């Protein structure tokens, strides 16, 4: 017999999976683009490699924040709701 609480739990699990799965697409592509442009810039101006890598990392950290929001929501759905 399937009860209401069970359905809620099942929906929370499914929601967590979809949240993290779909939420991982955007940051992944975006961070990749940042890395591609950083490589391009290092190719053009190799002297600034250290600065460029650091800038790339900060930019990626910012674009990753939406992925971390997805992670937080997924963990909330799994353990809190």
């Amino acid at each position, binding site marked *: *017999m*399937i009860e209401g609480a*069970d*359905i809620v*739990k*099942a*929906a929370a*699990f*499914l*929601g*967590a*999976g*979809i949240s*993290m*799965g*779909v*939420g*991982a*697409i*955007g*940051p*992944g*592509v*975006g*961070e*990749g*683009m*940042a*890395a*591609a*442009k*950083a*490589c*391009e810039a*290092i*190719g*053009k101006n*190799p002297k600034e*490699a250290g600065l*460029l*890598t650091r800038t*790339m*990392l900060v930019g*990626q*950290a910012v674009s*990753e924040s939406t*992925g*971390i929001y*997805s*992670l937080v929501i*997924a*963990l909330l759905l*799994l353990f809190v709701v």
Partner: protein
Amino acid sequence: MAYDIQTWVSVAAFTGGGMAMGFGAIGAAIGEGYTAASANEAIGRNPEQSGDIFKSMLVGQAIAESASIFALVIALMLLFTNFPSHILSVPVLLGAGLCMGLGAIGSGVGSGFPAGAACKGMSRQPAMSNRLTTNMLIGSAVCQTPAIFSLVVSFILLFTDFSANPVSPTWAAILGAGISSGFGAIGSGLGGGLVAQASCEGISRQPLTVTPVTNVMLLGQAVTQTTAIYALLVSFILMFKSFPATDALAPPMALLAAGICMGIGAIGPAVGEGFAGQGAVAWIARNEKHIADLTRSMLVGQAVAESTGIYSLVIALVLIFVV
């Protein structure tokens, strides 16, 4: 109207076969079309090389096609094999079909990119046609690995006897395994293609840099494959771990969600890693002296781009083992 189990098994077999070939045709067709378009452009630019370009177009298309042929094999097996009339055959057949169908998309499109770039490169730099063909073959072959992962998972699903397992969570585990490997292969195939495309283009522009460019291409592609390997890992765990029988809805949903999470979550990071590799390889061809700096920042960039894929892996493992 009550149908017996055999009817449902047949329904699943035909649906799975349709999905395998239907989805499986998307990627190869796009990839081959891209190759043909590039070949036409290349012949238009340099008609004297039409023989070589035509040959390499056909070879490139044949490789891009192989992902689709894997899908055809699975579809034919689903249509013409007699499967045991057990209720778990239904998710097995659907999962195998989905896995191979989705898994062929990325590799098909991805393999088209290096072939197209090689055709264009031949018109620009006819003396390099041999090296270009070799590089294209290596690059496209690596692009096929995710499709081969999907093929392996489909075969394991079809030939493993699940009938001793409890029906309730196992159906979701099987379906989740198929979805995870299927979706997980899309990004890696595409990303690997982008890296190989940049290397073919780079070789045709800077013929002297063949060796470093090919090496870094292989490195970039290997890192791009890692998300597909995570998806494969989740699939194997879902298929081979034994789950206790249950009447509730939540445990099977957790397993299904694990597959969806890892599968879809692997797409974006792999494409991103492909972009990163593409940028690095393109600039290594132009600026070979700074190969160490470029390789290093490519690896760091790819590693960071991969982190969201790793969060998906973590959530999938939590869904399987913790909740």
